[in-house]
């Protein structure tokens, strides 16, 4: 059994919010996704991925900003990992 992983970045912490970024990794070896290989997200929302059979296995925690760094921006906050096993 091999794992395909889909990472979706959503516009808020809600799983039904819209996808703003994405990445995928294919343990089957059939495809070779890479940086900058497409402009269209695979799903409009995180829930759309669930409806297509992807299983959620990790979601970002909600972490308060560090004192003194409330206005800093860095990594995308709302990251969701999904898998399919084949």
């Amino acid at each position: 059994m091999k794992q395909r992983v889909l990472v979706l970045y959503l516009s808020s912490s809600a799983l039904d919010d819209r996808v703003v970024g994405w990445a995928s990794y294919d343990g089957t070896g059939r495809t070779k996704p890479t940086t900058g290989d497409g402009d269209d997200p695979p799903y409009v929302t995180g829930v759309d991925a669930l409806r297509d059979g992807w299983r959620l296995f990790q979601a970002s925690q909600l972490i308060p900003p560090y004192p003194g760094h409330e206005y800093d921006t860095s990594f995308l906050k709302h990251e969701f990992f999904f898998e399919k096993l084949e």
Partner: protein
Amino acid sequence: MTTTSHLLSSVLMARFAAQGFLRLDAVVPDDLNSAAIEAMERGIPGVPHGIPLDVAFPAGSFARRLVDLPPVAGALRGLVGPDPAVDHLAVHVREPNEGSAQPLHGDAIIDTRRDTFDVQLMYYPHEVTPDMGGTLLVPGSHLRLTNESDTGRYQNLLGQVRLTCPAGTVLLLHHGIWHGGRRNDSDRRRYMFKIRFNPTAPQVRLWDTDDLDDPAVRAELSTTFPWYEYATGRLEVYNRIALWRTLTGDDTFDIEHWATRVHNRPGRTA
């Protein structure tokens, strides 16, 4: 560097502050593009870090001719001032059918400077078609505090720019912008020549400020990008307000009262 009348307008400067880059399409003439490709194929020696531009690029060299082109010189004048130092230069090559892309990254190391910035010039001497692995750019990512390729997990972001361009195109980038060389799926080599510039003087009102009060300036600075999370996108605008205050020397500038509101503490001085 040649002084020109091609200074940036305030609207274009605001676009740079918001997007983190400007593009100058097909500003380099064909003869210089040909000379550049020949020079890149021969190999271009490096220069010591931080030397004056005039020393780094002797008169007559293709690099000097490139930075002296009026649109390029005018834009650089507005961004890094009249006498920038050359941090380094590099020839980047994406080989034909090479099979992989660079991870998304910011150059050098995490850079927390908020009141100054370096500029990276990227020059494409030949046409870049969609399958040639043109540079991936993420508009509005330049103020994010991340270190080099720690962003490598992000393969695609909504609204990203997968550069295609005519021959002779020049990009001018804020040092912090997320970018990467895409996979070249064509049978042609793709060249890009990069120069990083360090300012040597305060970057305050170095451009043509006649249009500083044009409503289009505020519109540029208010732009959000499709990949922004809703809440964090507001912080991006907040940080742009701070950058624009620095660039203009106007510490009252604001958008939607966001900076003024969160600093309003009546009766308190610290």
